[in-house]
């Protein structure tokens, strides 16, 4: 599995559609102060299900929608898409994946451990999530055969937020719920607050955290 592309449109200072491809092992992002580099990090956290506007450096979730500039009107919505390559696994990797995929209930419990923090600047407005009885967009039988449990070589995860508060998640253009996004990335070490995203100024947060908080990070990696 590999992250191949990030697309932003109307997200924070990215008024126009902007694409970053990640074909290389190490991709550097450079530029003057205040030009939008950390907004790219916020975009990745947001599409992976970040629910607290404060941790996206805003007051309300609508602060992620392009707010206008000297020469432009505010945008009507924000959209961010992450594209992953999700080839069929061969040999050893398939075996390993199948093993951890059947870690069963234990797994699911760790993933759900982050309670919904209602008060922290949640999105307001219609949450228009697909009804709970809708089939999950994930393919149970793909677990073990591909890194992400979707029967497709490419997986696109998109999040949208409209000015009226409507918020949507999509997996390969099909509507999904936040729970589906969490299930999709279960076990991969990918997530809005996973140890694999180090925000600006927070590199030593893990060292300064309490011994108990540090334990939670280790549990995530278990």
């Amino acid at each position, binding site marked *: *599995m*590999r*992250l191949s592309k990030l697309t932003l449109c109307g997200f924070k*200072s*990215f*008024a*126009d559609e*902007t*694409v*970053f491809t*990640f*074909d*290389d*092992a*190490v*991709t*550097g*992002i*450079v*530029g*003057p*102060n*205040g*030009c*939008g*580099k*950390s*907004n*790219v*990090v916020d975009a990745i956290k947001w599409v992976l299900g970040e629910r607290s506007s404060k941790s996206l450096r805003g007051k309300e979730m609508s602060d992620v929608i392009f707010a*206008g*500039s*000297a*020469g*432009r009107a505010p945008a009507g919505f924000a959209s961010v898409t992450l594209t*992953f390559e999700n080839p069929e696994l061969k040999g050893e990797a398939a075996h390993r994946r199948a093993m951890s995929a059947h870690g069963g209930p234990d797994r699911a419990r760790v993933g759900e451990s982050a309670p919904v923090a209602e008060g922290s600047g949640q999105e307001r407005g219609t949450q228009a999530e697909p009804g709970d009885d809708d089939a999950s967009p994930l393919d149970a039988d793909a677990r073990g055969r591909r*890194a992400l449990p979707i029967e497709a070589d490419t997986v696109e995860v998109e999040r949208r937020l409209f000015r009226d508060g409507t918020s949507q998640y999509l997996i390969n253009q099909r509507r999904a719920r936040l729970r589906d996004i969490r299930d999709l990335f279960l076990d991969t*070490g*990918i997530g809005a607050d*996973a*140890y*694999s*995203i*180090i*925000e*600006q100024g927070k590199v*030593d*947060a*893990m*060292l*300064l955290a*309490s*011994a108990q*908080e*540090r*334990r939670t990070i*280790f*549990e995530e*990696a*278990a």
Partner: protein
Amino acid sequence: SRTLFEDTFTRIQEEFAGPNGMFRKLFGGGRAELRLAGLVKEVQRPDGTTEKVETEETDVLESGIEVLAKPPGKEPRAISQLSGGEKTMTAVALLLSIFRSRPSCFCVLDEVDAALDEANVERYTRVIRQFTDLSHFIVITHNKRTMSAADRLYGVTMQERGVSTRVSVKFEHVGEGGAIRGSTHE
């Protein structure tokens, strides 16, 4: 799930504090330690009130995790007494040790090198290279040395005030002022 956590803890401990672990790689020596913190229990005082006391007892499923660091040639120190750069290097060592235990297909590092001197920037970029078999790195930086270590550079600028655009950049084009010259819009 007890054995699961125990295995993970031992693996990360080895990766971080082992003789060939990340800490020694990043500091060129010294010693680090990860250990389970003593459980905190409520103890009754003679006057009937209770206080929280840290005991010697540890439990794999409950205990917190403590980090100790001893840079080469120095006395072992609590994390709070390390310098700005030493803290960053210890944090990077711990992060990459956890990463080794459960790698994810990408890792984002936003100006992690801000507090580092040039020699430590060198070690930081060299260590990241050892992880590119597992994952891709997205590294945001103002440091020329880190930029030169990347395979590809994107510039984010605001040619139109208030609006961010992405341009492709060659290392030689990143001007003295951090400004981006001669870039191409793809």
